[in-house]
């Protein structure tokens, strides 16, 4: 946790965990979808389920799905903006099991049928943790650019991916990988110290065993001037 996360973020109230953190989790889900969503479903767990309305969690989640940062003055009117943007929203409650009380499962869908489901927790003070993506266990916090790679479980994938990142002169902060079953599909989440270069990204994308690749921006310093998010999501197409 950086010092500017402790005194910060600058945000629209009323709750750092239930508003700013919720917004950041939805921003991560939007980046994982890599296109503007037309449909957003939010399943709330624990304290999120109990106090969502009082904390503006519903507004913040919708705002994040729209790509708004936690300090965006449009958050209080997020539902109206969603309607304008053609984003259909729905909410439910769900017992996600033995997870942090501030947890949510976010399912975003785009017009052409692509969907992404991200599950994560808001740990307090606006700090977040994503722990599941499209049914795979992953682990990242949005405090660094993050690569998400869905791939076939085969010999040498992790070594190859790590080599490409190293050759791009980027340090890996965290790496988490899990597979459905031996030889099946698997997912890697890799937090890196800076964003991958375009050639390195293209190289990874064309590896035969890579099925799907996303480059998520760092969201902890996202602000409503928009420059940060726009720049960081530019490379997630595909």
């Amino acid at each position: 946790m950086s010092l500017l996360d402790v005194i910060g973020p600058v945000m629209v109230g009323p709750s750092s965990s239930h508003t700013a953190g919720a917004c950041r989790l939805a921003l991560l889900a939007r980046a994982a979808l890599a296109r503007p969503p037309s449909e957003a479903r939010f399943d709330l767990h624990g304290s999120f389920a109990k106090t969502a309305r009082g904390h503006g969690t519903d507004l913040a989640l919708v705002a994040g799905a729209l790509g708004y940062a936690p300090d965006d003055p449009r958050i209080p009117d997020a539902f109206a903006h969603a309607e304008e943007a053609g984003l259909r929203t729905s909410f439910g409650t769900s017992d996600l099991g033995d997870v942090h009380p501030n947890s949510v499962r976010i399912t975003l869908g785009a017009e052409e049928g692509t969907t992404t489901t991200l599950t994560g927790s808001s740990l307090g003070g606006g700090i977040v943790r994503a722990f599941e993506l499209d049914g795979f266990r992953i682990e990242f916090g949005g405090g660094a650019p993050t690569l998400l790679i869905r791939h076939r479980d085969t010999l040498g994938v992790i070594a190859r991916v790590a080599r490409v990142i190293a050759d791009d002169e980027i340090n890996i902060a965290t790496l988490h990988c899990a597979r459905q079953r031996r030889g099946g599909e698997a997912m890697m989440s890799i937090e890196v110290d800076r964003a991958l270069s375009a050639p390195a990204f293209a190289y990874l994308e064309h590896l035969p065993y890579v099925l799907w690749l996303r480059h998520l921006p760092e969201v902890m310093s996202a602000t409503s001037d928009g420059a940060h998010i726009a720049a960081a999501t530019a490379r997630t197409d595909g």
Partner: protein
Amino acid sequence: MTLDDLAKATGRASDAVIADQGLDDAERAALLAGMRERLREMRDSIERGLASDAPSRTGMVGWNAKGLWQAEDLLGAPLLKRVQAYAMAVNEENARMGRIVAAPTAGSAGTVPGALLGVADHLGIDDDRLVAPLVLAAGIGEVISQTMFIAGSTGGCQAEIGSSAAMAAAAVTELLGGGADACVHAAAMALMNTIGLVCDPVGGYVEVPCVSRNAFFAVHAVSSAQLALAGLTSVIPPDEVIQAMASVGRMLPPELRETGEGGIADTPTGRRIALEMAR
């Protein structure tokens, strides 16, 4: 870093916090620039909050800061009034979904600016001198966050307002010339006297008791700084106080951890308000 390490620092506590981050020159400049920006945002939210009596989303709060600010000072205690009004100004802005700085959370956002800017304005201290104390406040929060999640839903209100009061107490102590040892003990005494506080917001809204609680704990932080500056210390080592708070947090039932199902939220009137708001 632990609080005991920080207490042993020979220079200013804030310098020790910065040194511990291992930053290069550019990162250090970015940190200080970020803190200056947050200071401006804190000031801005105080000004908006003191000027507004617009109701919050539920209508339970919205006029407290302005009402107090404009009221006659019958106690003859202008510092007290200023600290309370500043703190509530920030949290009423927060309850109106206005723009604030989480410190460390939004629900406890009024404590640090209430105490630090309240004391500074009372004594006529320039904002430039508030940046280092703010860095120290962040450093104290960071140490606490290594032991427990700073969230009402995991540790009760003590985790939020206790942390903010500890951060503010250390900041005010440094502002008034206290050494690292005094700053750390100010934080520890503020924490020790917050342990056990539950998170029981009426209807789940960050309004009651949150707004007035920030006024109370901004004053609590100033009290703690006053004791520490006079040389009083916490008998229990500061890091053990954090452990105790985390342990009490784990003992709290879910009803008292930001679910709006216990305490002041679970009174006949609290339940009635929650029902009205749900409609």
